[in-house]
């Protein structure tokens, strides 16, 4: 029994890394711009399909698809932020309602554009990033999934170091906390918004590239990841970087362990249920700050 629990926990940690990365990427965008980015998952989709395309021409491995996905999605993210979101920004904050509807339309647009371009079939990267698996008794850890975990941790760490120790990272945090004060210090809030959106989207794209060897890519894949990203940041706390990481792993573990009682399939309820619970009991999340401004 204990062994089973440990196995499930370990498996949960594996998926938790991905959730943490997703949460981080969204908390960046939401924390700074207050945009309810319904299209966040579509950035992941774009990254995934970038990896698929590279795989189709024989460029596999880990670094190349992830780097390419980051590049592509950064570019797309900048365009989206400049053309679609900036017009909705007033005094450093995006109009909440219009921003949501805008990203909603974007989500519709992008997921169907992918459908139109690549077709509805599930696609997979041919070949594997890493072969084999580590076996400890009943526990089987596929190399692929380990790569995902490692990749997620590396990206997450890079982001957190960036935010903590660089000038730009400080500016991003400042804009998220108090755009007027940031502007008074000489920060160009508009530029920071562009950078933040591109950065958050790029991370989601990187996640997409990471998961393609394990998960099939299909046009509508984005939304469930958007949902998980939101679940993670609500549990962790809006705007909290450590909260997103913590919540990501908690979610992964909870979802995995709950299979013991809920059976596969029903255990997918854990995420939404936890989010609802957190919203009702403690909307600011585990580590979130009191929302100082409405």
């Amino acid at each position, binding site marked *: 029994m204990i062994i089973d629990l440990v196995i499930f926990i370990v498996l949960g940690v594996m998926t938790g890394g991905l959730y943490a990365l997703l949460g981080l990427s969204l908390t960046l965008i939401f924390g700074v711009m207050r945009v309810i980015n319904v299209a966040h998952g579509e950035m992941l989709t774009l990254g995934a399909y970038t990896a698929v395309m590279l795989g189709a021409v024989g460029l596999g491995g880990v670094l190349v698809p992830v780097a390419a996905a980051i590049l592509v999605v950064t570019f797309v993210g900048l365009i989206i932020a400049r053309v679609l979101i900036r017009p909705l920004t007033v005094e450093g904050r995006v109009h909440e309602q219009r921003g949501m509807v805008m990203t909603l339309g974007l989500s519709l647009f992008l997921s169907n554009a992918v459908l139109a371009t690549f077709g509805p079939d599930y696609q997979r990267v041919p070949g594997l990033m890493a072969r084999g698996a580590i076996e400890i008794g009943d526990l089987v850890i596929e190399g692929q999934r380990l790569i995902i975990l490692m990749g997620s941790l590396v990206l997450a760490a890079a982001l957190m170091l960036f935010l903590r120790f660089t000038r730009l990272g*400080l500016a991003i945090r400042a804009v998220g*906390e*108090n755009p*007027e*004060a940031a502007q*008074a*210090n000489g*920060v160009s809030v508009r530029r920071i918004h562009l950078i933040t959106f591109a950065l958050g989207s790029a991370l989601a794209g990187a996640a997409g590239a990471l998961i393609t060897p394990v998960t099939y890519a299909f046009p509508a894949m984005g939304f469930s990841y958007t949902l998980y990203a939101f679940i993670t940041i609500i549990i962790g706390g809006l705007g909290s970087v450590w909260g997103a990481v913590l919540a990501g792993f908690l979610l992964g573990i909870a979802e995995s362990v709950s299979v013991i009682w809920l059976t596969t399939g029903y255990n997918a309820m854990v995420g939404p249920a936890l989010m609802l619970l957190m919203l009702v009991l403690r909307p600011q999340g585990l580590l979130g700050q009191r929302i100082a401004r409405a």
Partner: protein
Amino acid sequence: MAQLEAAELTAGYGGSTILNGVSLSVTPGRITGVIGPNGAGKSTLLKAIMGYILPRNGLVRLDGDDITRLPTHERIRRGIAYIAQTRSHFPSQSVQENLRMGAYLVRSRSLRAQRQSEVFQRFPILAERRRQPAALLSGGQLRVLEIGRALMTSPRLIILDEPSIGLSSGLVDTVYGHLRELAASGTTLLIVEQNVRKLLSVADFVYALENGGNRFGGTPQALSARGVLAGLYLGAGAI
């Protein structure tokens, strides 16, 4: 030549107009004050000067250069610092990080370090609490932090929007003491205030705004002598 000049500024938000042809001139090295009842347009004036809003008409000039349409960070680069009315700091960041943000435009690390130690020297309380999150500071200490933050760019002109707000009279005296020292060391100050008495005690020149327009411009003595104050705050019939 005046260091900062606003000429016939007309500005507002959306469909409404708050400022209707307001003019103002700030002399270098002096303390200039702006008073007026609520809604007279004082904050709007500051926002137009800083570039948070673009005026519909009129000019803002710094050292003779037209900066009316210049982006805010450019104006800061040219030596203006701005301390807003409310919460002009970052609560979750430490005192030191708040100062670091103040020096955002200062690229030279040695320059930043030098200025930070100057700020710490001027305001020892900040040095004591350098690693504490700003959220833990009291109202008066926050005001000091905001001034310190403004000083990190070594500005030639500091604009303050109601520095006395929310402070006890003792703290107001302390803050104004610091402001007087700053002016004495050569920094130009433009102060908008509700606490008229305090402002008049330090200002060299005072403007009074009413309903988006200039009502008075002169020395504090002239202001008191002409009895403008009562009319300003109590309505024209009160004089």
